[in-house]
């Protein structure tokens, strides 16, 4: 994976110095809160319900064991012994003191990490397929492009005060594991008949209060023009995106209002101009980055067959281990969704354990997934049993990947100052109701996603089952959506009827699964059945 050189390191070190100075000026009174707020947000420091919250970037979700270990140590040293992995492939700490923030950034910088642009109206951390470089179905590893984008977007002077936040996601496979079309810009690395790599660019997707699926703005772009093209995309947005209403300020609204065709025309015009400026890094830079993402030294002779006589282990392998591009290896997903637990939370000890496993068994690499789980991307199948045992001892071996227990939930009203309702207790109740893993497996792939308000941080629009927390006269209430997806078949869920109390919604979901079981045909997922038979049978069962 990518290693900082002295240039990259100088940038994060300079950032620590800059932010330390800003905090000192805030504490001395030289900076008022109004002036300080945007500066701390650019370093991922929010003021949340109970304390300051720090969001640390995990660029394209990839990190090494040392970095992961540092995340655990920070949880112990400056927080209350845990962290929350998020749908943005980041980690958030909930109990940070302002006076500690510069020291935390310095600790992060010591392992090549930072919190740069994890909030604010700027280009945020680029997310990517969490199986990049490992998946058997991959066309090309998207991470070299994501790293090029990281550098290009870091402290980009022209795009630091955009109309609104800006999120880029990139994938290199037809299977979309990054909700690519639900981002401001979604990029897919593709190949043509001649085997050359190109980029397909989608612009104007997003969730929030106005969910939209991004249209294709350019079908094929030379990878050696990516920076110039994105520069053009951003410049058009910076100049013409709406600033009169923050709810209409995302690029999806601009693309929607002027139309994809007109947006494309403006971008092409700007692109032609920008190509004359020589802003594009040379091919040698992309080659330098690509070399750092070269395959680790896989043992091509590693055996495929392993002893699966322990049924619990076999179950976990079947559910949580994916096909790797190299025979004899597997991709392990560590579920951060124990039955009845808090989705995405991990203790400092668990974080350090995962770091150790990555160091010992996965070529020093981990990934954070947008579904709030952790991946060990390159594991020899013969090592799986040892890993499973250590995970199991630490409560990290729940075999529920992509099942109804693998719930995405935003922090909700337990932590978030924008929330209308709590998300986590609902996730815990649903997870407890469906605790039986065999029952979960019978229900098959079922993506359940919960947001505590319309901002949709928990991707509720994209859940096969989505739940949205609302405020009904001061009381928490939940709306139920069906039919969303964030895979290659991206679709937006729709609200099926009147809202529910917390207990009401758990019952409603149970009834919906009964409809599915009764109506499914062979091999159909919940989503497929819903798409085939429509809302009516579900409504009848739930409200009837």
């Amino acid at each position, binding site marked *: 994976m990518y290693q900082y*050189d002295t*240039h*990259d390191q*100088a*940038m994060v070190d*300079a950032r620590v110095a*800059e932010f330390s100075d*800003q905090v000192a000026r805030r504490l001395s009174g030289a900076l008022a809160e109004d*002036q300080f707020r*945007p*500066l701390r947000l650019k370093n991922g420091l929010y003021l949340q319900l109970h304390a300051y919250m720090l969001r640390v970037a995990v660029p394209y979700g990839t990190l090494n064991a040392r970095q992961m270990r540092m995340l655990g140590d920070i949880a112990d040293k400056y927080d209350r012994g845990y962290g929350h992995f998020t749908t943005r492939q980041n980690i958030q700490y909930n109990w940070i003191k302002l006076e500690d923030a510069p020291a935390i950034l310095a600790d992060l910088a010591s392992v090549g990490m930072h919190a740069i642009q994890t909030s604010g*109206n700027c280009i945020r951390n680029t997310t990517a397929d969490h199986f990049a470089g490992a998946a058997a179905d991959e066309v090309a590893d998207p991470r070299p492009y994501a790293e090029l984008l990281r*550098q*290009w977007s*870091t*402290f*980009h*002077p*022209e*795009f*630091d*005060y*955009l*109309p609104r936040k800006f999120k880029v996601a990139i994938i290199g496979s037809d299977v979309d594991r990054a909700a690519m079309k639900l981002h401001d810009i979604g990029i897919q690395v593709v190949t043509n008949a001649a085997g050359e790599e190109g980029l397909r660019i989608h612009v104007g997707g997003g969730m929030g209060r106005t969910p939209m699926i991004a249209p294709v703005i350019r079908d094929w772009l030379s990878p050696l023009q990516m920076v110039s093209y994105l520069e053009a995309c951003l*410049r058009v947005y*910076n*100049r013409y995106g709406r*600033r009169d209403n923050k709810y209409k300020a995302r690029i999806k609204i601009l693309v929607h209002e002027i139309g994809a065709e007109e947006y494309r025309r403006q971008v092409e015009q700007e692109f032609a*101009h920008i190509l004359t*400026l*020589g*802003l594009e*890094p*040379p091919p*040698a*830079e992309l080659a*330098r980055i690509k070399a750092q993402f070269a395959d680790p030294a896989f043992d091509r002779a590693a055996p495929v067959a392993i002893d699966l006589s322990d049924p619990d282990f076999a179950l976990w392998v079947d559910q949580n281990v994916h096909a790797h591009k190299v025979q004899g290896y597997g991709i392990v997903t560590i579920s951060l969704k124990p039955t009845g637990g808090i989705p995405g939370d991990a203790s400092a000890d668990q974080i350090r354990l995962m770091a150790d496993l990555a160091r010992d068994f996965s070529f020093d690499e981990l990934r954070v997934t947008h579904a709030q789980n952790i991946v060990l991307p390159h594991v020899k199948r013969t090592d799986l049993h040892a890993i499973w045992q250590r995970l199991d001892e630490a409560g990290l071996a729940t075999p529920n990947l992509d099942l109804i227990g693998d719930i995405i939930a935003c922090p909700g009203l337990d932590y978030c100052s924008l929330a209308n309702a709590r998300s986590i207790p609902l996730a815990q109740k649903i997870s407890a109701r469906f605790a039986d893993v065999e029952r979960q497996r019978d229900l098959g792939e079922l993506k359940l996603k919960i947001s505590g308000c319309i901002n949709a941080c928990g991707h509720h629009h994209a859940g096969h089952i989505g739940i949205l927390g609302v405020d009904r006269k001061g009381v928490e209430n939940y709306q139920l959506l069906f039919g969303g997806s964030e895979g290659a078949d991206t679709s937006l869920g729709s609200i099926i009827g009147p809202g529910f109390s917390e207990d009401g919604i758990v019952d409603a979901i149970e009834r919906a699964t009964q409809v599915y079981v009764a109506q499914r045909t062979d091999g159909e997922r919940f989503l497929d059945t819903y798409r085939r038979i429509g809302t009516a049978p579900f409504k009848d069962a739930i409200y009837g």
Partner: protein
Amino acid sequence: MAETLIRLRDDSASTAPVVAFADLSDTANALAVRLMPGDDARALLPLLGQLELVEVAFPGFNDGRGYSAASILRESGYTGELRAVGDVLVDQISHYHRVGFDAFAPDQPITRAAIDTAIATWPEVYQRTVDGRPAIWALRHG
């Protein structure tokens, strides 16, 4: 000493009256113009040869359109004074400088020393912009 106009140029400041962009058509021979955030900087391109001063207004520091306006003017060869006017804060100065501003008229006075420190915030930079600094990729590959 904190000042309300800081110029990083050696020439003397233009004394021409500053014409609002909206009034330009009446004063085709204007030497100094002020752009508001919504004004199209490209409409000034035919005048670039004659302009001595372009003021770019920042009514609020968080309206970033002026950064694109400045970049566009410099990319098109404008060499006169480019002045950021209004809610111009020290923490934004390095970015202003990178997109081509060479003068600042902040509502709240800033010292020259603070401006110089701010410009030096980033020892190196990742992007090539109109400020001519070599991008890190250029340093890496000579």
